[in-house]
């Protein structure tokens, strides 16, 4: 191991950290290491923005998700102009081309309409309780503003994407939280008690891992009745995603617990007469926590992708619910997407969110365990 040793001897950061260890708590050290990783910090910041927007989604969106407008089918994204010191949209007039019966849109920037910030619009309940009708931006009555275009029924893709983020982003977190609880409990039980319990749990995990993920998800999801309420369906889809996602985590936790079981301090507390619960809760889980956080963070993107895929296939979330996967169903037809590329914008959101979660998870991992 001479080379590794040389590297360790010579890598200044490592030396610094070793000399710090006595003074700083483990979490402080991890935070420091994490902060050094610019890309991960950036990923974390973008995610914070994502989640803030999701929480304040009705405030951010100018239109409600089901505001139909038969005059604006597949309307292209509205251009923004900077006119007279205001961010404005240009007036649009719609005329029917009688020759081939298509709508022709003409933009007239002499008639500019500045965006109105913090203006009243449709009514909603902030956080589900506070009644409000103020929105981040609105356009004057009679004008239409589609920042990211409109869909087949003239609904605002921007508003729908923002509102869709609520389901798509939360299902990942909630699903992974359930996975973490399941995985930690079963993984700990498996690792700590060993024997028959371990055997049964491990065989069960192997069984679940021997079934292809997406087809299994699909089978579960297809078993849900079509006429379920949105909330119920959300709950079950989350449950399905986590029921299959906990296995990897359980294995990792088990491996950690097994490693801790042989350590001196565990032995010492056992000799001192501590109960199993005490040993698990005070000595093992806190140590495994950083590891659990890392694995969980890296699992969130796959949960998000899972929901998106299922909804895209028509067996996940279903309309009238709005999620990124549901929105992408509109983009299923090649002929539609080709001429209306903005329908793919929810896909960009998926990609960005998933990438950021990966960066964040990677940063967490490097911070928690710099040598792996």
């Amino acid at each position, binding site marked *: *191991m*001479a*080379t*590794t040793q040389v*590297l360790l001897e010579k890598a200044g950061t490592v030396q610094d950290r070793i000399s710090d260890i006595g003074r700083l708590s483990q979490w402080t050290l991890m935070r420091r290491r994490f902060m050094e990783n610019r890309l991960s910090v950036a990923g974390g910041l973008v995610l914070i923005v994502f989640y803030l927007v999701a929480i304040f989604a009705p405030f951010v969106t100018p239109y409600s998700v089901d505001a139909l407008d038969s005059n604006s089918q597949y309307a292209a994204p509205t251009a923004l102009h900077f006119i007279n010191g205001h961010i404005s949209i240009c007036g649009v007039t719609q005329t029917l081309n009688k020759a081939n019966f298509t709508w022709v849109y003409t933009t007239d920037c002499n008639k500019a309409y500045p965006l109105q910030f913090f203006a009243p619009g449709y009514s909603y309940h902030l956080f589900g309780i506070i009644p409000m009708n103020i929105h981040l931006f609105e356009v004057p009555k009679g004008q239409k503003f589609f920042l990211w275009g409109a869909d087949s029924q003239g609904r605002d893709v921007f508003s729908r994407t923002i509102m869709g983020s609520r389901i798509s982003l939360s299902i990942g977190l909630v699903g992974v939280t359930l996975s973490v609880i399941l995985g930690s409990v079963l993984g700990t039980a498996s690792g700590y008690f060993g024997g028959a319990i371990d055997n049964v749990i491990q065989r069960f995990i*192997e*069984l679940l*891992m*021997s*079934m*292809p*993920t*997406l*087809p*299994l998800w*699909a*089978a*579960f999801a*297809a*078993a*849900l*009745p079509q006429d379920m309420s949105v909330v119920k369906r959300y709950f079950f889809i989350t449950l399905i995603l986590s029921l299959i996602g906990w296995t*990897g985590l359980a294995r990792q936790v088990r491996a950690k617990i097994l490693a801790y079981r042989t350590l001196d301090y565990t032995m010492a507390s056992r000799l001192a007469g501590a109960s199993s619960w005490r040993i698990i809760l005070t000595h093992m889980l806190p140590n495994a926590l950083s590891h659990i956080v890392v694995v969980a963070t890296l699992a969130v*993107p796959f949960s998000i*992708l899972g929901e*998106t*895929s299922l909804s*895209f*296939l*028509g*067996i996940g979330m279903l309309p009238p619910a709005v999620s990124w996967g549901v929105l*992408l169903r509109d*983009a*299923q037809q*090649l002929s539609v*997407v*080709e001429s209306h*590329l903005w329908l*793919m914008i929810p*896909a960009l959101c*998926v*990609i*960005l969110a*998933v*990438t950021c979660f*990966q*960066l964040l998870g990677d940063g967490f991992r490097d911070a928690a365990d710099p040598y792996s």
Partner: protein
Amino acid sequence: MVNYVLRRLLYMVVTLFFISIIGFFIINLVPGSALDARINQLRAQGGEVSYQEIESLKARYGLNDPIPVKYWKWVSGVVHGDFGESFTYQEPVGSLIWSRIGFSVLLSSFALIFTWVVAIPVGVYSATHRYTVPDYVITLIQFIGVAVPDFLMALILLVVASKFFHTGVGGLFSQQYQNAPWSWARVGNLLSHMWIPVIVIAASATAWTTRVMRANLLDVLNQQYVQTARAKGLREAVVIWKHAVRNALHPLIMTLGSLLPSLISGEVIVSIVLNLPTTGPLYISSLINKDMYLAITFLMALSILLVVGNLLADLLLAWVDPRIRYE
């Protein structure tokens, strides 16, 4: 070694048995199956023939039996090569699935080969050129590659192909070969159509595997035996490829267990977007239509594909790593 293989085979059969129970149970969760629909349809037709058929269907699938009895009837059929009937297609399941499963196996295997053929060299390059611009670029592409869901990749490719190259990429055959008998020309046509779905299916797996390979190799390059090899006077290429990569492959093969499910999942969803005649589209539609015998057969087929893949991976591992031989 033979013992090991036999034990693993036995274990595989047991696993598949349990999978069939779970799968059958899940697919039978919801009342209102395609079987009911078919019986209702026959009832509406009325007549002696219909009545007899209803009775035979009831007897065969134990319509009013509890799930365990239904399961037993189904399994006894499967053992004799009778997979049940697809009620939407009104055809035996057996006749519907084989060619589709064949294409699925073909696509998944090619995707796996593609994944490794690309991921290993790229991962090696990335690890041996750490902190250089190409390494950063590769890392960035990896992150995005993992982040783009398979079906999106397929969609994007469809759009790009039709917008910029004015060609369609759907299907596995050109029109004239669609129903033609097998010939070399048809195989060639298949291959020329297959590379796009293969790349799409393999994309995220490739990105992920590249990352694993890079991390593995970086670990191995710190090992003493790599330095030993250099100290012998070996060329760097030999040091890397003979001494380091061989050891870095070991954990890579271990991750096959999680790579295969993602490839098979990818195959299912990409086939739907690209409209390929594989298990994917039919499986999902059978689920939506509650065509349960078709669905369970596909689920079992995909599971077998996965379990056999895992077995092969374990054997490969035993071959690559002398330490686990004869265990």
